[in-house]
């Protein structure tokens, strides 16, 4: 699905990522963990193509049609159309644009890219309703401005709602668990699990092991100072929970 080799990236001329190697296959869930400032969010944003994050070395290859291709030249919207989805840590508020308009526009753009006909707003609304139920969201969400006045939990649910509608092949979920109470966390996890399939993959970026109780990862990677310093299965997350990040840092 995606192959990252020796990835280096800068933000405002500071090198944040210093040689990341990561391979994710279809059907897998990978968790990226690590202390504050280790580069977790940067990794997610570089893959999604945020203009403020500059790739300086290495390669990101994503399965575009049948083979892995470099996505350097693709704009963020083209990456989205190719099936990459970024769930934001801090979703942006957009006053004046209703959630329905935003989702509909987004959905139709993705449809168009896949050679499908756009669907009218009324049909789209009924399609979205089923997804709202999955996330235990009220229909009134659709008529509110995007994320404006939403609680932390509502914003994160809204991100997963978008993911459910766009049905991406690769989901990058950036600290989706932060700011969630336990009920909201369970709902969000339920949503992510329901969308899991053999044909898509998920990269979870998180501080805490807590989320991984609900979304079981196949692989866990520890990111520290811009490098992956340890990889393992889900038991690594539990070990981290018990021993803290110092345990790995001291081993280095």
């Amino acid at each position, binding site marked *: 699905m995606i192959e990252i080799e020796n990835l280096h990236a800068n933000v405002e001329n500071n090198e944040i990522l210093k040689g990341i190697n990561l391979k994710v296959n279809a059907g897998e869930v990978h968790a990226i963990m690590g202390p504050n400032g280790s580069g977790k969010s940067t990794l997610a944003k570089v893959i999604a*193509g945020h203009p403020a994050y500059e790739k300086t070395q290495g390669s990101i290859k994503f399965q575009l049609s049948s083979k892995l291709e470099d996505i350097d030249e693709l704009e*963020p*919207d083209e*990456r989205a159309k190719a099936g990459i989805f970024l769930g*934001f840590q801090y979703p*942006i508020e957009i006053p*004046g644009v209703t959630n329905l308009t*935003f989702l509909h526009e987004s959905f139709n*753009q993705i449809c168009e890219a896949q050679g499908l006909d756009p669907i009218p707003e009324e049909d789209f609304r009924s399609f979205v309703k089923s997804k709202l139920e999955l996330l235990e969201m009220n229909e009134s969400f659709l008529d509110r401005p995007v994320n404006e006045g939403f609680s932390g939990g509502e914003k994160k649910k809204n991100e997963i709602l978008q993911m459910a509608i766009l049905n991406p092949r690769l989901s990058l979920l950036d600290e989706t668990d932060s700011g969630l109470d336990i009920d909201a966390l369970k709902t969000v996890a339920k949503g992510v699990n329901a969308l899991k399939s053999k044909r898509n993959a998920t990269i979870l970026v998180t501080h805490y092991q807590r989320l991984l109780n609900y979304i079981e990862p196949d692989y866990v990677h520890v990111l520290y100072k811009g490098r992956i310093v340890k990889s393992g299965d889900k038991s690594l997350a539990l070990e981290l929970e018990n021993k803290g990040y110092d345990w790995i840092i001291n081993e280095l």
Partner: protein
Amino acid sequence: MNSNEVLLKEAWKYTPLFKLTEPYGQPSSFETQIPKPQGAAVVFENGFFNRELSQLPKGVELVQSSSLENQATLVARENLFRNRDNSQTTLCLRITQVLERPLSFYFLNQGEKHKFSPQISIEIKENIKLCLFEEFLSEGDIFINRTMDITLGRGSQVEHIVTATKEQESLLNSNTSVVVNQDSTYSNFLLTLNSKVIRHNLDIRLNEKGAHASSFGLYTLNDNQHADNYTFIHHAHEQTTSEQLFKGVLDDESTGIFTGKILVDKKSQQINSSQLNKTMLLSKKAHSHSQPQLEIFADDVKCSHGSTTGQLSPDEIFYFQSRGIGQRQAKEILSYAFIQDILMKISDRELREKLTTAFTQKFKKFQLETL
């Protein structure tokens, strides 16, 4: 320079007068080839009221100027272009009934280096509710200098929209003077889309207790379009209120100006007034000038004002892009989102939809270069 000259210079600081004082002559014909809009309306053709084309609804009376006592004419501030053209007769209207549908004024103007000066005086009786909708439909390089005086009788509610939705090469100067009497509400919308040079002079006098004025403005400009909103709200009586919100979206080498003078007389206590001007610059060469001018002589008042000039946030655009929406479209949607709150204040659904479409179309003409 004497003090009058200083004031004059200040009033026209950002709109060079040569733009408006080129030698535009009187038109030779008062007929135009511009398609006539449908519906009950007041139609002006090349500066003059066209009786045949107009359909005045019940409750709108055409009266002699001698029988109309319009306070707004008496208190109107001097400005450079007001009543310059003495040869022009003034159309005098008295409105005596509530109007369910908007009363539309269409100004059809066509010419080359010609000047048109429609003048209108409107007296609105007590407890009348209505919407005045003015639209300029111009062709050719012309100068329109329209004057309108409106007096609101007690307990009236008037919405007043001024716009030009079609692309035009014209220069437009508007002089609007309004007197708002007891317990009346006047809401003005200056919606600028498509004129080469536009200057709106808007004077509102809150004349009696309980008078309220809302003054809204939008200017979405591209190329080297120029829009100057020169507004004056005079709290001439105690217990009067006003609010002002002007929003500009400026692309290319356009210029948008807002001057908002609020005067609170010494005897005018218990005043509530707010003013806000927000501008978004979409290109490096666009200019925005914002001048709040508050002159408050009373001491029991609440007056707020603010002004912001900014750009689209890269994070907002990235959020759209990450959802498959291209940069250009993201900017169009965000520009519309920036101004939509003003359009939503228009009560008539048909007009609101027509104007929403016009502004959405306007953004499609923007360059929206990457800054």
